[in-house]
Structures are given as C-alpha cells and as structure tokens.
C-alpha cells in the first residue's frame, strides 16, 4: 500500500506502486531510512558533540550573561557575588568562630576564600547538572542535538563564572602577602582537571535528575555535607589530629579536597607541601579521568530517553 493507514482510517487515495505489499520495516530498509531518535554509537556521538562545540560555548555564555542582565549593576555581580560570599565566610569562621587555630591570618583568609570558590565551582556544576535536562525539557523536545551538550554547557558556564572569582581570589592573595610567582601556573592544570571532574559529575546528575527531578530538592543538603567534610573552612589534618588517621586520609583524598588543596598550594606562600596528602596529582588526575569517562558513558547510555515527560 502506498498510503499505509491503520484499521478504521479511510485511505482515500491509493496509487499503484512497486512497493505495494512491503511492510514498513522492509520499505524503510529499501530506501535506507533509519529509525528516528535512535542512540548513535559512542564514537559517532562524540563526533556529533564536537560538531556542536560552538553551540555549547555560545549557550554557556548566553546563560552567564542572562543571569545578571536585569540587575542594575549588571555583569559587575559576576565579581561581587563571590566577593560577598567570601566575606560572609570570613566573618563567621574567621572572626567569630575562629577555627583557624594554628593557621596565621595571612594564610587563613586566602585559604578560606580559595576553599569557598573552588568548592562552589563543583557545587554549582552538580546543581546545574541536576536541572540540565529536567529544567530544559522545552529545548530537548524542540531541537535535535546530542543531549550531553547541555550538562557540558552548564559546567562550562560555571567555569567561566569561576574565572571571575579567580580575579577576586588573586586580589585577596596579593592583599594578604602572597605575590604572583611561578607556582601560580599550577592553578591551570588543577582547574582543568577539576573541570573534567565537574563535567562528569554534571552528566551523572543530569541523567539522575532527568528521571528523578526531586534530586534538585535533595542535593543542597548532600552538597553542604560534602562541603563541611572537605575542609573548606578548616584544615583537615589539624582539625582531626585527635581522631584516627584514616578519617583524615579519606577526607583529604576526596576530589573536592584534592582540588582545593592543589590550588591553595599553588597560590598561598605559607601553605607548603606539608599540608598536602601524598600522590595528590595522581589523585587529581585519577578522579578527573574516572568521573569524566564514567559520567560521559553513563549519560550517553540513556541518550534516546531524555525528553520523555
């Protein structure tokens, strides 16, 4: 039949054709038609994603700009927000609670601010990841693109946000006596690895969040627990010196603590290698590769199912 209709529908125009009698699948095979919305292979998927790199970048920049476009101070908030954030933590933990036993002031302030900024980078990537699919269903249901473009784009937006924060951080470091030196260059590989780790996390959370949007409610609590456990506002070895050593080891090897420590070490003069756990670069690389690859494959596995309401 040329006009294949279901039972009960009226086929009003039937023209004779050599394709009469073929099943839909046979007809599709004869003319080389492919199943719509099928998941591409991993290599093909990466190729498609690479083809969309300009979209990923443009989308992340657009999101970043749109964020503060209604505020009077506009893009100034990109810098003001992290600055205020650092101020709040300094007020509470630096001045009032005083958890800085054993750390001199010119180390503690940049130590704290680095911790807050670097952790916020991971935190906001995870939070944006949860809503990457579930919060953009309209986009997913309207246009065709590899869905991984969304979590990657959101992670990239957080990276650009972090670059503004880094400006603030450099000023604070200089203000507290740590001047630019060669070791500052170590920030680049550390942030690159953290970005890969964050992107992997964002992709895992995007798949989980697309199935269970409730995660957006739950994640802030998990992230806060993670933050307190990662030594953002205190030094893990000093805080836990009375407890069994393995607790401090585990906490120090968690990815958030690793990336924080690396950037502190690179930036702050009084924060030397004695504060770092052994094999820290190996761990930084390992976490990035593990989560980057696992997150990507995990996300790709459900590619054809995103967008189902």
């Amino acid at each position, binding site marked *: 039949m040329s006009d294949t209709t279901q039972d009960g529908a009226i086929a009003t125009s039937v023209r004779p054709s050599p394709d009469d009698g073929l099943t839909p699948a046979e007809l599709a095979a004869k003319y080389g038609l492919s199943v*719509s919305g099928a998941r591409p292979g991993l290599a093909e998927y990466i190729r498609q994603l690479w083809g969309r790199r300009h979209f990923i970048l443009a989308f992340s920049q657009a*999101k970043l700009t749109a964020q503060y476009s209604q505020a009077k101070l506009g893009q100034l908030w990109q810098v003001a927000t992290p600055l205020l954030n650092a101020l709040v933590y300094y007020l509470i933990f630096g001045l009032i609670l005083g958890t800085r036993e054993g750390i001199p002031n010119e180390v503690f302030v940049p130590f704290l601010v680095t911790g807050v900024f670097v952790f916020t980078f991971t935190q906001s990537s995870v939070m944006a990841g949860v809503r990457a699919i579930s919060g953009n269903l309209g986009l997913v*249901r309207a246009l065709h693109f590899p869905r991984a473009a969304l979590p990657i784009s959101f992670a990239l937006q957080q990276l650009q946000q972090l670059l503004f924060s880094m400006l603030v951080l450099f000023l604070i470091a200089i203000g507290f006596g740590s001047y630019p030196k060669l070791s500052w260059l170590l920030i680049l590989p550390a942030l690159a690895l953290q970005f890969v780790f964050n992107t992997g996390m964002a992709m895992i959370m995007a798949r989980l969040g697309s199935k269970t949007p409730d995660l957006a409610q739950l994640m802030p609590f998990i992230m806060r627990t993670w933050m307190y456990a990662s030594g953002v506002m205190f030094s893990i070895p000093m805080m836990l010196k009375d407890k069994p050593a393995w607790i401090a080891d585990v906490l120090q090897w968690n990815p958030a603590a690793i990336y924080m420590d690396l950037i502190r070490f690179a930036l702050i003069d009084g924060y030397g290698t004695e504060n770092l756990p052994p094999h820290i670069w190996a761990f930084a690389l390992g976490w990035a590769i593990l989560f980057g690859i696992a997150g990507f494959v995990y996300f790709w596995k459900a590619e054809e199912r995103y967008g189902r309401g």
Partner: protein
Amino acid sequence: MADLEKNDKRADDGARVPTVIADDVHIVYRVLGGSGGRGSATAALSRIVRRDKGESRGVRKVHAVRGVSFTAYRGEAIGLIGTNGSGKSTLLRAIAGLLPTESGKVYTDGQPSLLGVNAALMGDLTGERNVILGGLAMGMTREEVRERYQGIVDFSGINEKGDFITLPMRTYSSGMGARLRFSIAAAKDHDVLMIDEALATGDRKFQKRSEQRIRELRKEAGTVFLVSHSNSSIRDTCDRVLWLEKGELLMDGPTDEVIKAYEKETGR
C-alpha cells in the same frame, strides 16, 4: 503545483521515495502529581510506600498517540489537523525523534527538524545574540550563521521600525518575538521539515511572507509537515492531510476530501 514537484521526484522504478514511515506509533506521557488531586504530603508519602508492580502510584499515564501509521513521500506537504489535544504536536515530536515512542517505530530519511527554535532563545539576550544562538542550536556552523544573519534580520522585519535587534528579546511585543523566531527557524534548509502553528503568528503581511518562505523550504526540503488550525493555510500549502482525533488517525488523504470531512464534523 504540488503534483508537478511530486512527479519529477520518483525513484528509478517509478515508485515514490518515502522519507518518513510511521509504523504503529504509540506515545505515552507520564505525568507526576496528576493523580486524583491528592496533593498533600501524606498522600505523596503513601504513594512512595505503596508501590504497584514497579509503577509508582503518583504517576499518571496519558496515552497521547495511539497506533498511528503512515508513509510520507518526497515532495509532499502534509497537513495535520484535529481539535486541540488530539496529539498533532506530539506526533510531530516523535517523528523528529525528540520524544521517545512507547511502542512502534518511526523511520526517517536524514534528520527531520521541527521548526521550533523558541526553546533555545533567551528573553534576556538581545535579538542579535538570539539569532546567533538559535542558528547554532539548530546545528548551523558559525560561518553559516554569519552568512545568513543579515537575511534573518531582514526577513523578520524587526528593524523596520528602528534598531530593535540590539534590544533584549523580552522587550519585544509578542508579534515581533514570533516573527524573529520564525525567521531564525526558517533560515535553515531541512530534509524533512515540520512546522507547528508557525503561520498563525505576525500580521497579515508577515503571514504572506512566511507562507512564501514555507513554499520555498518545501522545494528544497524533501517533505514538509504542517500543524495548523487554519484550514485556509493548510489548503494553500498542503496536498495531503492527516486528521488526528484522540491520538488516532481518523483520515488520511488529499487535502480537499479530508478538510471537507473535518469541517462537516466540526460543524464549520
């Protein structure tokens, strides 16, 4: 007009070349929080505790498309008609591969695209940046976007009343916004093109212009699908019509026959 184009696009053996084959397509939406109006926290808790065969009780299923099959050929312009909520837009999304089917398959030639770029645009950005973002979102390269930028802006007519393209899109009137959206979406060439109510936007002058553009796209594209509630615009652009009702394909045939039956049924 339509028949002229159709005839010269036949395959070697005289058969028409299919571009889209829908084979018994079913689509089911799962809606959270739609069950029986019980929205309290205790009700939600009891839903989690008492589960039935893997399907959680809070989820309600909406069977939006029920067993639709048809074959579309190269050079056809197919209208989809039906009352609101009959599954027209859902079917289009499934053809485009944007909504997974519950059962059944959709086979397509190349990548069908939905003429709907709205979702990628952001009201807080200027029209200018939205043109670029929308073009990239549809899969154009940066060079293509740059090439077609001026064409898109001119076609939309946004700048006819002043320099509006550099203003944020949220400041546009709904008509202006719709014109820019259509212009961005229509800038790309597609193998299989699907248009959802896009013609109803803008003033009379812009409607004429967009109908003209759709005819052009149809010449370049293999197949065009058009969802519309305007029978006249279906008559103007389509040569075949699918009539959907409650997710089922009620009628499939030449425009005049189907529209006549549809008008009789809906009392117009």
